[in-house]
């Protein structure tokens, strides 16, 4: 074992004691590997922004219960009808399978893949576990989604050592406690860190010292930059700009004329390795919504009304959990021909009650009049959010039917308490209890809009 490895292991042990971790045996393999440092030098401590991304998260979680499938092509998704791939093992990705691809298409590419159904509850549990490990290293954790986060370890350096040491520590701890692997990108800014983790995958770590940022960045194609989609890339390539380095060398004026003021300035900054964003531990949510794509397009209005109630319930639960209330209720409908409409209504007072949200969304639906197409997707979203206790409640002179009787507040609050103890599946609205097996996919929570 080299001197560097000795030091690394020693720091890890010290850190675990400092953080009060349970002394579970740590698998040596992952943590003992020498970190890859871009440019071939040593980790100089300048790459304090970590981007940690779980490797094939959903698939890896499922494989914990299917050890016989380890090393095989496995796809997580709903096998029938409109199912899409939510995750796939690297063995399946090698065949071109990726997330959001229809399962049917994935099976054409990789016919021998095993398709397993997803279990969102399980992923959430593992995600919570992983985020807890991240937060034991530093409080400056910004979860980006269920399976990735930014960690600012500038302050944790003194206690836990170099960023690469901390990265190795987290990787080892995640594997020891969950059996899952993750990849770490360490850099001086967020977006370089995210690019680095992508290049460290799977089960690896890549450190990009601040001094190496431009050397790492400039040879990359411009499409690797955040905010460069197909059309921007096309527009820039007509100027002869193909790599990030060429973009950085282009005068800002030229760029602004080509792609506009805001994105020109932003691209120029990114291409020069500048990204001033810091870790935001709590994002301020602007809206909360749920939507569902039906397995088969729906014409039955009663079914849509029921679905609106169910979605409203889910939205209200999330609002209450976040301590928020919203003043605007928006309804989204996508029809068979993929045309999409949204309608919204602003309420007299912010609400976090499913009954009120459901009433508003059903009224919006009714106001559409007769719908001559089948409905493919339906969504309910609450916008104009305020912190629930923050608004001064202006009592009204009289109670009218537009305000739900206070009994609903008690009922929904009680349902929250029961759910906290026994889970959400136990207690349901009578109208949402289904005879027989479930015939529809679960609604997917929409990410809060930043």
């Amino acid at each position, binding site marked *: 074992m080299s001197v560097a490895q000795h030091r690394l292991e020693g720091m890890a042990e010290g850190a675990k004691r400092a953080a009060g971790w349970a002394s579970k045996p740590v698998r040596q393999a992952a943590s003992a590997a020498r970190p890859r440092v871009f440019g071939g030098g040593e980790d100089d401590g300048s790459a304090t922004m970590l981007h940690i991304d779980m490797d094939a998260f959903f698939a890896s979680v499922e494989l914990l219960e299917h050890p016989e499938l380890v090393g095989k092509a496995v796809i997580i998704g709903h096998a029938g009808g409109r199912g899409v791939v939510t995750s796939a093992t690297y063995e399946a990705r090698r065949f071109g399978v990726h997330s959001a691809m229809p399962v049917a298409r994935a099976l054409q590419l990789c016919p021998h893949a095993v398709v397993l159904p997803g279990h969102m509850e399980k992923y959430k549990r593992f995600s919570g576990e992983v985020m807890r490990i991240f937060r034991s290293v530093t409080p400056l954790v910004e979860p980006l989604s269920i399976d990735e986060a930014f960690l600012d370890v500038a302050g944790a350096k003194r206690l836990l050592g170099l960023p690469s040491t901390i990265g190795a520590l987290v990787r080892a701890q995640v594997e020891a406690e969950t059996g899952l692997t993750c990849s770490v990108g360490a850099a001086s800014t967020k977006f370089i860190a995210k690019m680095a983790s992508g290049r460290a995958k799977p089960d690896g770590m890549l450190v990009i010292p601040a001094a190496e940022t431009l050397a790492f960045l400039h040879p990359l194609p411009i499409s690797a930059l955040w905010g460069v989609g197909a059309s921007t890339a096309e527009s820039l390539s007509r100027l002869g700009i193909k790599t990030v380095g060429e973009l950085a060398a282009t005068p800002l004026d030229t760029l602004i004329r080509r792609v506009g003021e805001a994105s020109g300035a932003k691209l120029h900054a990114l291409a020069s390795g500048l990204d001033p964003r810091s870790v935001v531990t709590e994002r301020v949510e602007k809206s909360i919504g749920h939507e569902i794509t039906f397995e088969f397009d729906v014409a039955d209005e009663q079914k849509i009304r029921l679905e609106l109630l169910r979605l409203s319930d889910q939205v209200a639960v999330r609002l209450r959990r976040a301590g928020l209330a919203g003043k605007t209720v928006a309804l989204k409908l996508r029809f068979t021909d993929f045309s999409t409409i949204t309608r919204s209504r602003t309420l007299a007072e912010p609400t976090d009650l499913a009954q009120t949200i459901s009433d508003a969304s059903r009224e919006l639906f009714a106001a559409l009049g007769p719908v001559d197409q089948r409905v493919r997707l339906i969504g309910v979203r609450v916008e104009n959010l305020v912190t629930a206790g923050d608004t001064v409640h202006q009592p009204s*002179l*009289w109670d009218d039917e*537009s305000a739900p009787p206070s009994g609903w507040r008690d009922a929904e609050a009680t349902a929250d308490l029961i759910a906290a103890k026994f889970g959400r599946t136990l207690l349901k609205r009578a109208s949402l209890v289904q005879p027989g097996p479930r015939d529809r996919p679960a609604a997917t929570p929409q990410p809060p809009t930043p």
Partner: protein
Amino acid sequence: MKFQANRDVFSEAVSFAVKLLPQRTTLPILSGVLIEASGDGLTLSSFDYEVSSQTQITADVEEPGRVLVSGRLLSDIANRLPNAPVRFYTEDHHIIVTAGSAKFTLLNMPVEEYPSLPVVNEQSGLLKAEDFSTAIAQVAVAASRDDVTPVITGVQLEISNNSLSLVATDRYRVAVRTIEWDSGTSSIDTATALVPAKTLQEIGKTFGNSGTISVAITNTDERELIAFKADRKTVTSLLIKGNFPPVKRLFPETVDNYAVINTADLIEATRRVSLVLEREAALRFTFTIDGVTLEAIGSEQAQASESIDALLTGTDTVVSLKPQFLLDGLGAVHSEYVRISFTKTDNPNKPGPVLITSQSSKDQAGSDDYKYLLQPNLLLR
């Protein structure tokens, strides 16, 4: 079609005709103003199936005819025309408007597709324009502006015997004013009509100086509408369907506990102190024998307080009011002094409403019967 009209008369008529048109109409032709020229002058009309406006003016008509032209555009043009007679004629498929050396060519919209305006010939009664206009301004301020409950976006007009009362509410306050109603030759002595507050406010502004307004409430083809006529101008509006909440019963019979304050002083102080308040927050008013103290609290960054004279009858009282709601009431009493009365309640979660009425002097209650009832907030400490 070909006519010549006085510039100011024409411009005023066009402005009136387009004033009640919504910013966006459901059908493009509804954004037009219909101009009909005949032997005795011009008729200008607009109609969006909810509200119609129509006016007659005199003009030298050389060639009668009927055209439809973009209302807002014509109104903008008419307001800017130089001070010279307006000449208006059709040429091929266009409309030409000239005044002095200015010349405009406008699109002739398809007049055949324009709907016919509701015709109201009956009369339910007469109103004094000035009183009606003042009453609308005093009451409509309390009407709801959100569309959650359409019935309260209207002003309820209630006719009984020889009076007309106007009522509006947004759940948090109720404003009521009663004025004289002359049923004239009609046999109508009780009727109600729920008129959109926005439309009624425009009507109040338009007819404010018209002397006497003729009012008709009719029901034809299941469409209930109200018509106002004065000065060769007619406005009709569909009524809002539904039952207006019986808010008049919320007003207390008598109140023993009240304060009398100089209206302007209270308005000034309220505006000043609420500068530090966060949006939607309430002001705290403490009434004692020494006067009233206004305090803005609740925001950590800034606080403010001010005391002004008040003549208190009854016990010391503390209320928490939204400044804008109070200011709306104070601005509507139209009197030098104002009486703020405190009602009692048994409900611990809802303070008793506050009643605002006019006061012609420190000791003398106002002669009008304007009443503004306001629901205070819960006291937070």
